[in-house]
């Protein structure tokens, strides 16, 4: 019987001086893809940095199979694959050289590294560009290379910080497909503010807002929860500004009949009708986070 890794976060806090970046987050992660959704400054990167021990926590625990990751140290990091938000790469290295370098940092033997790197380059479609310098890679290629290095060593926990940032639609689809492909029997955490990425691949969604985890559930459940609280109204172009002044967090949608202004409220406002079609995580986001930001 194969035992999969379990990552428990207990009351995790992080303060930067007077500012609270993370305020007592408690979550348990098991095998699956978890999308961490939140606005800019919600604490997504801080959360991930705490999990990779790049930032010291103020209080709380992060347990990997029952043991604190600070105690485990190297043992924990052997199970970890991390893809940072910034495209931090050695521009003078070739793609292949960079992967070999990361393999040596991950204590992978040369023989094993050769096999894994070949396989990963094929998977991320960088085999042809492996011998070129990273300075000549496009943004999408750099992201794929970063993903490849995160997958080196067959980690059990894969942490991806904004993996599709700056990519065009085609690249984003490719990246999402890759993540789905490698996520079997692993814990994949990926932080993003692009809702559609989570909709497509996440098994669970963690909604973060101002350092707090508002909701942790499957996308379907989250949508069900808010479907009775999403309202919309048909507007002409000239009317949008007027409606927006009253409901600034709303969403303008282009439908067959014309423009529609969609909002999220506890009760149905005057002039608005319940939205029945095309409900998505964006509406969940708008309900839980968008309104709060507007307030």
């Amino acid at each position, binding site marked *: 019987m194969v035992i999969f890794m379990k990552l428990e976060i207990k009351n995790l806090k992080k303060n930067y001086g007077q500012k609270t970046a993370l305020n007592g987050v408690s979550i348990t992660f098991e095998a699956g893809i978890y999308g961490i959704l939140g606005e800019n400054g919600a604490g997504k990167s801080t959360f991930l*940095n705490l999990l*990779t*021990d*790049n*930032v*010291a926590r103020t209080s709380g625990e992060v347990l990997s199979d029952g043991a604190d990751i600070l105690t485990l140290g*190297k043992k924990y*990091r*052997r199970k*970890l694959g*991390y893809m*940072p938000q*910034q*495209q*931090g*790469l*050695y*521009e*003078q*290295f*070739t793609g*292949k*050289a*960079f992967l*070999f*370098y*990361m*393999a*040596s*940092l*991950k*204590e992978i033997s*040369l023989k094993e*590294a*050769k096999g894994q790197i070949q396989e990963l380059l094929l998977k991320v479609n960088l085999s042809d560009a492996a*011998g070129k310098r990273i300075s000549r890679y496009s943004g999408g290629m750099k992201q794929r290379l970063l993903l490849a*290095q995160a997958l080196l060593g067959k980690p059990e926990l894969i*942490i991806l910080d904004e993996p599709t940032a700056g990519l065009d639609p085609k690249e984003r689809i490719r990246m999402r497909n890759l993540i789905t492909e490698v996520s079997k029997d692993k814990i994949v955490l990926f932080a993003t503010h692009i809702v559609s990425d989570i909709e497509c691949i996440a098994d669970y969604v963690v909604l973060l807002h101002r350092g707090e985890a508002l909701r942790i559930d499957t996308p379907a459940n989250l949508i069900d929860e808010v479907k009775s609280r999403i309202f919309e109204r048909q507007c002409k172009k000239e009317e949008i500004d007027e409606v927006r002044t009253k409901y600034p967090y709303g969403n303008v949608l282009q439908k067959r009949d014309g423009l529609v202004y969609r909002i999220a409220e506890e009760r149905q406002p005057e002039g608005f009708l319940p939205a029945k079609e095309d409900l998505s995580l964006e509406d969940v986001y708008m309900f839980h986070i968008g309104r709060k930001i507007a307030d």
Partner: protein
Amino acid sequence: MDALRSRNCFDRRMSMECYRFFYHKKILLLFAALFLLNGALFLREQLSGSSYIEIREETDFRLKLSEALSVRSDTEWTEYLAAAEAYADSESRRNALMEIAEQAEYLRGYEDYVQGILAGAERISGFSVFDSESSGFSKQNAENTVRAYKRVEGVPLVPGNDKPLVRLIGYRYLFVFPLVMVILTAFVMARGQKNGMPQVIYSTAGGRFKLGVKRCICLCASSFLLHALCLLQLCLLSVRLYGEIDFGRSIQSIEMFSDVTYCISTAGFVFHFYLITSFAIAIIGVFVWMCISLIPHTAMAALAVSAFLLAEQSFAGSLTLQHSLRYLKYMNVLEYLRTDEYLFHYYGFGIFGGAVGLLTVMKAGMIVFFLLFSICGSAAFLSRPSGGGRIKAIFQSVSHFIGTRVKSVYICKAADKPKRYVGKCCRLFPAELYKTLVCNKGVWVLLFLAFAASGTVTERTRVFTETEQYIHDFYEKYAGTVTEEMREYLLSERETAEFLVREYKRIYELYREGKTEKTEYYKAEAAAREAGIALQGLDFIDSEVRRADALKEARGIQICLFDTAGYQRLFTEAGANTQRKIAVFALLSQMVLLSGSFQYEETSQMVRLLRSAPKGRTGLFRAKRKCAVVLSVFVTVLFYAIHIYAAAEQYGLPELSAPVQSVKTLQDFPLPVSLVVYLTGINAARMIVYALAGVCLFQLSAVLEQKALLIGATMIVVVPVLLERTGHAVWGKLSLFELFNVNGIVTGRAEPAWTFGKLAVLLAVLLGTGALSRKNWRG
């Protein structure tokens, strides 16, 4: 209103271009460093043969003489100069007198010189053979020459202080630094070809041809400004050394400019010289800018520029005025900087069968080149930044073809083998070396500093006094242990020398009494003089023989006699200046290589990724530290090899297997080792000290920013050395140089207490920073 708005926009854009360039702190710092280097090299060139005091003494005397001559008529000069000989009681004064005498002779003979040229030219133009068509050049040239020199017929000449201007114009690197700065300016202007900026600029109203013209103007203005600043700096230094320049005299008063064929004051000529050379520098700058604008790949552009300039250099160097391909020599961007030919002299240039003054040809060529480069460079802005556009497309396809062809035929084949070793080379330690030397451009820093070090430690050709030459010749014949043969030779030489001295005394008495010829006396005097030199030499050699005998008796060490000058430069106070320079360069290399070790990870934004890996903390730290040690050792080997090589080349390092006590200053060294063992031991000890320092620097780089570390380390190492020159010996004791030099410790010159104290401080810093840096990196 539109015109006014347009003009205001143009002015604003001009100032923004200047702001864009001059706001760049690194460039400004680099320029400041180049200015300082320019001044330092100029001073070094001037002070290579004499000290500052000697030069000033010569200057003061020369100024007095030239002032005195200027108030006298030329018929009185000879008498005055003869009388001045009595005051020329030092070498520098004698040099000054000689220069003034030469100047006086030149000034007196100038009019005759001009008349001679006029007469010759008139004679040539009168020959009937030159009336034919085929000889159009010779006749025209003769006529032009007459016209040219008639302009300066009877020009009033005044004696004065020529030296500051002559030394300034004759400075070897007069145009090098302004040229380098202008080329850098061109590259900085072209900065931003990546990152989408060209597309943004191209889409604006003023982002095409006008922008190109504006940048061209900025570049030209920079050339004139930078050249003016460099010239002014050198002028001030020259004036400080050689006295003030009299700008009011006619330029022909200075012999160097005797062939300038237009009436102009020194001030006017210097201004003309400045304008022409600034324009020449601007042309090269605009050419570089044009290449960068047209060729998208910076490395390819640099290659094109280098290839063109090399070709120009070869044409300028190999062709002559009479050569059929002379146009390649004179329509040449580098030749415009060789002003001595076309600006200081009059030459005729054959063109379409006729003759034109070379200066006119050069000026026309400069204008043509400038217009060509500036128009092409500005027109590059007309074409679309990415793809499209005729001009850029042509260059892009050519550079792409060359690049891919060269790459596919040569580079790919050559690169195939190393690719197999990529895996091994990318393990932690080799990757650290790669990051430091290649990614951080450390190898270029090392090469530059090694080149600079080899330049500064190379001393001027060794000059022997007569006694030293005698001793040197003896060592050439008899280097080695003291043998009976050597002793016999020394005895016989001494006997011969003493005999010659006695003989001279005898012949002198006879000559006084009139009993012998003058020639006999002179012969005896010359022989006695030689004998005197030999006796001085023999005294020295005998003292060495006695030292050898004493050491053998006291300690059983058989030393060798040979020329130890090379070893003295390496080990003793005699070479302290050079030793210090080498230590400075070695330390500087270490600082530059190692101070950015951790900062590189920050700037690459790799820190988080590295720390998340199992070996990204302690493992990586250890690899970096190993790299620091290896690089420190390499730096030591490199710079001290340069030092040893310079000493070997200049002075020789003979008898390496001789006991170290053979060098007089090391005769008290306790261990009976050979010179090669001693040399190895000293350098091994140095390696250890440098390695410790290297690790300290590396560890500090985890705690401090690179700039702060560089400044702090420089202050700690350099400031005590500078303060020591104020005369306070305590600063010398605080200085870390002795620690790196090691010689003082071994020879006992450095006090043990201070040495151990400094070592203890170094070790304390090493241990203290070790813990702190590890903690900092691990997070």
